[in-house]
């Protein structure tokens, strides 16, 4: 197991690369979910204001 994490002495380079890759995907994914919620909320509040007029 240690050998696996050590990556033949290249641990820093290999794990930073994998980390960046997965990190970017996760940031993209979370960003998308948040954006969807915000946009839907904004449209809803705009509709409510239009109704109240």
């Amino acid at each position: 197991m240690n050998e696996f994490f050590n990556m033949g002495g290249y641990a820093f380079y290999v794990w930073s690369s994998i980390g960046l890759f997965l990190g970017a995907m996760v940031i993209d994914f979370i960003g998308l979910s948040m954006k969807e919620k915000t946009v839907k909320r904004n449209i809803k509040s705009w509709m409510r204001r239009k109704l109240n007029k």
Partner: protein
Amino acid sequence: MHKQRTNAIVTLYHKLGSPPSFYRISGYFLKWLLLLSIGLLIWGLYEGLVLAPADYQQGDSFRIIYVHVPAAWMSMFVYGIMGLCGIIAIIWRMKVAEAVMMASAPIGAWFTVIALVTGSLWGKPMWGTWWEWDARMTSELILLFLYIGIMATYSAFSEDSRKAARMAALIAVVGIFNVVIIHFSVKWWSSIHQGTTVSLMGESHITWDMLRPLLIMAFATKFYYGYSMLKRARIYLLETESHKRWVQDTVNESNNGDKS
């Protein structure tokens, strides 16, 4: 009006061209694209990091290939889609093409950043340098600037989304030449970056045990792009058509869905 014979493909084209249909149809694919990409990602990384044998020259450092190359492929593939959508957006003013183009930009830029940084992380132990101004790396960096330029142009004209998308489309189309340069850069200017290892047409210079995880990762990133792009395109259409009836119905529906 003259009668026009329609077939399934033409009908699909017109359906996908209309924002409400595009929104509805793409909704069926989102979950599956995400599940497929996560599954393939786990499988590909497991094969690449655990099962694949170490390289006889580069040792375990070569495993960076499993994120570097799929990301680099995607950085060009996504740009190609943007260029194509840019052409459609300019010629036919198709709104869905504008949505797909702008929805591709952030994820394409991410893939470009991953390709550049993992390349740097691979270059340091193998070449002894983080960065070299060779043709492959320089043209990939220009690709990142193109992505950023397209997003910046869009937001600069954000008060009129149609105009903003057309301006962005112009850059996207002109920038296609850079993708060609990236592809041939290792052939035209042989420098520090290694040549083509995997080829669709010719012979690949890699054993199957090493190649298989790479192909799995290539599919994983394609599917994630599919998810990210469709989801972002849907949000784009909601935003730019927010005063239309179908958007208001959609938002209300999802509201009821959240409560139940």
